[in-house]
């Protein structure tokens, strides 16, 4: 484990960091947006729609991420066009994020007191205004900590994109390990592990702070 190996491995792993962050951010963005209509469906008064979406969300979450990525990367073909590995990873992890975030949103809306909606209706606010100005801001508070926790698990799951060839940190580490199969093979994985921890810590700390602050705010 010479000094040269470690720094070369570190450079390679860090070269994969932007891709790790990009996949995580894009998939999270997809989930943040698509989670909203899914959540609305999960809260729908039309029972068949609600139950159908319940099943869809459960199935999405029941299939492991790696299966989603392989399904989209190898299985989906539109005419002669196939997704490149980055798009497949973002779509796959985005679909998974949508399902998880929809469930987080739904849970958060369920905690908003019924009286809030009733009071808004009594004041003559429209359904859209009630939703957007009264219910959603309160639900968002409750949802934030879970959303941050999910972001952390998505960051870790983004490593699975390496299995379909997205050049993230784990992909780079694997390349290094294949080229240096002896003692040095393990080094890049420890480095990648350290980088994941370093990236996670600020998210975890701010989530915890936010949680305490919002809890205080909710009590006051």
């Amino acid at each position: 484990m010479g000094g040269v190996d470690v720094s070369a491995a570190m450079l390679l792993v860090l070269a994969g960091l932007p891709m790790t962050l990009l996949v995580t951010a894009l998939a999270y963005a997809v989930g943040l947006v698509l989670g909203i209509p899914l959540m609305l469906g999960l809260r729908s008064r039309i029972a068949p729609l609600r139950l159908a979406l319940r099943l869809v969300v459960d199935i999405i979450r029941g299939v492991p991420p790696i299966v989603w990525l392989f399904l989209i990367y190898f299985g989906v073909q539109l005419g002669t066009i196939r997704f490149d590995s980055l798009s497949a990873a973002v779509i796959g992890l985005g679909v998974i994020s949508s399902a998880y975030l929809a469930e987080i949103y739904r849970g958060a809306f369920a905690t908003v007191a019924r009286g809030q909606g009733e009071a808004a209706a009594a004041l003559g606010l429209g359904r859209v205004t009630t939703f957007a100005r009264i219910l959603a801001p309160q639900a968002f508070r409750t949802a934030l900590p879970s959303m941050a926790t999910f972001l952390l698990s998505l960051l870790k799951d983004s490593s699975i994109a390496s299995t379909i060839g997205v050049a993230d940190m784990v992909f780079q580490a694997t390349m290094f390990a294949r080229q240096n199969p002896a003692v040095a093979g393990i080094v890049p994985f420890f480095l990648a592990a350290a980088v994941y921890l370093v990236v996670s810590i600020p998210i975890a700390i701010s989530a915890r702070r936010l949680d305490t602050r919002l809890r205080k705010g909710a009590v006051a």
Partner: protein
Amino acid sequence: MIDLAVYLPRLGQGLIVSLQLTALSVVLGYVIGLFFALGVSAQRGWVRWPCLVLVEVGRGIPALVVLYIVYFGLPVLGVLFENFWAAVIGLTFTAAAYSSEMIRSGIQSVPAGQREASAALGLSRTTTFVRVVLPQGMRASIPALMGLAIMSFQGTSLAYSISVNELMSQAYQVSTITFQYLWVYALTGLIYAAIAVPATWLSVGVERRLNRGYA
């Protein structure tokens, strides 16, 4: 056409390996997780800190990276394992780290009055913990541990990356033989979901039932 007769036996074999991986990593992981939970709650710093670091590292890094570290790392230490056992070790470590926090918060949820009452009855500290606190704490963490078992089952698909012949690897091999990628992976996904989704519903039911008991 879809050659189910070709797919299903191989996917079935893979599923059995996946379930074996799940069973081993969950059972071993939860036992180790219990010790981690005790270690993290320990008074002595030299016990608490190493446990805390292991738990946070296990929860903070991707399970895939844990698998690669075991797979590429153990031979370096002169330990040669079959891929299957490398996967068991990696998945067990991840399950242990996650379960320890669930078990710890379960134990913490037991009201202090329970310990005080046991002390008042003259029960020793060990008896108090093993017979009074632990059973109630474990009961409180059952829903979370069931959820983690389902996640662990799904997580066994990562063992594909270190060439364990579990469901995902079998799916990959079948798909490269038949070229029916879409069908093979869709079927594979449904097999995972067919186990994970009912299991999730079961864990939700158990959670409701346990809550009812406390009401």
